[in-house]
């Protein structure tokens, strides 16, 4: 397990690249074994590298051929539905990461607005609030007030009668 973050780009230095290949290949083969065993599924891997004459395979040459036969038995459509290359795979990952990012930004905005609201409630004077901040704040307060009212009603219902009118 590395402690440093590795840049997602071709490793120029030969010995570094070779070492990385050796370690990651081993890790990948292990993961192939694990997923195959844990989930009881067929799988195979073929890796060509300039460091070895023969392709590196999992589970074995025969095993790969068996899985490939099964794979090729499928019609073209079934195969290619999930047949990815670097381009399609990376685009998929980019899309998913972007979704996660948008979601996190949205969550953070909510928390930020809560903070602003609570500070104002405490009597703080806030400078530098943008028009967006103020508008979003109003929206949030409307929703918050509704939630409070609903909560009060549900508590009163639980009691069976409205709690001391005034």
């Amino acid at each position, binding site marked *: 397990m590395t402690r440093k973050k590795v840049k997602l780009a071709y490793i120029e230095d030969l010995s570094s690249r070779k070492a990385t290949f050796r370690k990651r290949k081993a890790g990948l083969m292990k993961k192939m074994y694990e997923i195959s065993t844990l989930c009881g599924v067929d799988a195979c891997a073929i890796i060509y590298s300039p460091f070895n004459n023969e392709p590196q395979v999992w589970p074995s040459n025969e095993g790969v051929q068996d899985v490939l036969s099964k*794979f090729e038995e499928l019609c073209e459509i079934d195969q290619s539905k999930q047949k990815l290359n670097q381009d399609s795979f990376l685009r998929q990952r980019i899309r998913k990461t972007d979704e996660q990012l948008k979601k996190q930004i949205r969550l953070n905005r909510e928390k930020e607005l809560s903070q602003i609201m609570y500070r104002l409630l405490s009597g703080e004077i806030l400078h530098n609030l943008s028009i967006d901040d103020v508008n979003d704040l109003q929206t949030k307060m409307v929703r918050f007030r509704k939630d409070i009212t609903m909560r009060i009603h549900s508590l009163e219902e639980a009691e069976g009668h409205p709690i001391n009118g005034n």
Partner: protein
Amino acid sequence: MARKPSLGRRKIKIAKIENKNHLQVTFSKRKSGLFKKASELCTLCGVEAAFVVFSPAEKAFSFGHPDVDSVVNRFLSRDVPPQTTNGALQLVEARRNANVRELNMQLTQLLNQLEAEKKRGEALEEAMKAGQSERWWEAPIEELSVKQLEQLHASLQELRKNVGKQAERLMIESAMASPYMPVNEVTGFAGNNPYELLVTGFGGHAHGHGNGLF
């Protein structure tokens, strides 16, 4: 501290998983991780490879660089090993590699942004927790009593009016772009502090302040 929804890292035995749902979830996650590692291997080390995995429902998933078919054909000796001296092929490969480089850079940037936002989220969460322990009205509404809720409701109503006035002012001021008036100041209240009741804490029935909202 509240229990996280999933248990995170646990040491598991490498044997077929009994529970069908657990098996499916594990398959999804591990397949995703596997292809991610495969993509990284191909990028970092510049190697050609293909990976095929069948799902528990016998659907085929594959990843390959430059593509699954060419690697499979090469393995089954159907194609001759790539002629890297072919000029046209070299150009195609160079262009493809440049494209992958671009995509990896884009992905890296997004991942960095995501990490930054997550850190920001954690900091905001910390501030929230700290605030909750100091001021009762910052606690989740499920923890408040009816009286506290009513008080909070009233204060919010007051605040909303003030913010509404300020919002109008901001809209007018930014439209006029007056150099004399500060555009960006929003006060939580105007004049005396109607939120004093919050500062002094909860005590008795705090009615009849300000404009008698009830």
